């Protein structure tokens, strides 16, 4: 077996056929393979929730980049997760309009309800809490995203409604 084939089989044992097909579709639009780096990271994260070291190395090889170069790209962007996250990521807006509307107290309430601070995941793996800059819904402050959903006018009632159940579960 030539060296190239070994490398190729390496990649396909880590990345699925579906992932590779989606990455190759992106490659068709870019003049250099590394041009699809962010798309590739997002594709893999879309399937797995985060990008492991093993996946990162496989993507780097597929795009003919060094691991270090791709790691430099991956760690630059806040929506690329290099550590496992829970089933839903809570992106909590801590920017100015939400701050004026009292988001600090709500953050404290969420942290208490779920028993996690920024960067942490609940023990039942349901939620990861992260701060995010202004979500572009400042007229409906305070706001957050829970998974794919934008939640507006967040108050303590919202927190109980969404996370109250979670609290009980974590306690059990």
């Amino acid at each position: 077996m030539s060296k190239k084939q070994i490398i190729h089989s390496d990649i396909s044992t880590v990345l699925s056929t579906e992932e590779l097909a989606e990455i190759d579709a992106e490659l068709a639009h870019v003049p250099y393979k590394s041009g699809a780096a962010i798309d590739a990271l997002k594709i893999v994260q879309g399937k797995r929730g985060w990008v492991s070291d093993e996946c990162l190395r496989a993507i780097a090889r597929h795009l003919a980049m060094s691991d270090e170069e791709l790691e430099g790209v991956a760690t630059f962007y806040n929506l690329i997760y290099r550590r496992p996250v829970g089933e839903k990521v809570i992106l909590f807006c801590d920017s100015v309009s939400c701050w004026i509307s009292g988001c600090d107290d709500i953050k404290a309430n969420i942290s208490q309800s779920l028993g996690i601070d920024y960067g942490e995941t609940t023990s039942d793996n349901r939620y990861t809490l992260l701060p995010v800059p202004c979500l572009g819904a400042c007229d409906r402050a305070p706001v957050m995203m829970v998974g794919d959903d934008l939640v507006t006018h967040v108050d303590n009632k919202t927190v109980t409604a969404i996370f109250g159940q979670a609290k009980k579960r974590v306690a059990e």
Partner: protein
Amino acid sequence: MEKVLTRNIGVDHKPTNLQDYEANGGYRGLRKAMSELSPKDCQDMISDSNLRGRGGAGFPTGMKWSFVPADDKCTPGHKYLVCNADEMEPGTFKDRLLMECDPHQLIEGMILAAYTIGADISYIFIRGEYLVATQRLRDALQECYAAGLLGDNILGSGYSLNMYVHPSAGRYICGEETALINALEGKRANPRAKPPFPQVSGLWGRPTIVNNVETLCNIPHIIDRGADWYKTLGVGEDAGTKLFGVSGKVNNPGCWELPMGTPIREIIEEHAGGMQDGYQLKGFLPGGGSTDFLTADHLDLAMDYNVIGAAGSRMGTGTMIILDDRTCPVGMVLNLIRFFAHESCGFCTPCRDGLPWSRQVLQDIEEGRGQPEDLETLAYQVNYIGAIGNTHCALAPGAMEPLQSALKYFYDDFKQHISTGRCPYH
């Protein structure tokens, strides 16, 4: 007033599909351009309209486009049109509305812009969290391809254009146009040195125009109805209408399309319904987190680029953030500087190291550990980090704008924090 940019946006915020959009005059500008206007005709109309970029800097759009070299003045290859849909400036919420509710308006504007500058590929660079807008734009693009409004030989004109939606992976700095181009190329989003300007050497080293969502949404109307009509829309010195927004402790926070030059007082008191009971207006940032504070003394100014500039601030994105008398100005500036320090791309020292230093000094003052000499330190930082030319891009100078104006207008608040060793608002 006639609604232009938001004419298809109802209270229910239901998105328009191709049929609704065309029924209300949509793609009329495109049909006109494809059948009877040359790119040069379109360029002249946009220049004559006095449209200024709505991304924050107010740069004249026609002038920007005119820097793209003509085909015979550059090596053959692609040219690109990029829509900046990154919208991450704190306090800004206008592009989301335009994309979620009327995606075809943006697409029509982009096709016309691309046609004018001779681009054959276009991207919508949209922030990763805007999932609804991303889906609606993708649906709209599909409708356009199926109807022959995008792809090869658009409406039989011989002009061809492809358009892609490119969701970002995060970071505020991606909104800076050269950082955005690096992100589109799959790299870290560090801004590039200028010159060369993107108009000459942008994406993949090819001529590239980057325009804001709202800027591009104006284009179909100018092409359809002409520059003279467009100029009559403003009530002050600038042309057209604008989405103005207000957030903070007002009765009716929101975003409205109003004539350029609308007085600030009208926006805050009529449209936003004035201050909530028990709150007084103490100051406001006129156009997002990187603009200088103005105060109640400025309420009668017109929202025009030069008028707000002459008052010592910037119109920025036109979405105001209100500081009320029960919110601590030091705390508000601390929140903003914390954001900017976090979002620094780390390329240059005054920004990477200077902004965390400012944040630390502000945090000390806010938490009651401030010393009198801290005010001199902040003034030094404003001069040094805020000076254009000391940093590689405008993030750091922008970060200093709310701080420098807070020191000017709310100096007593800073002093009181230091002399009493606590935040008087808590």
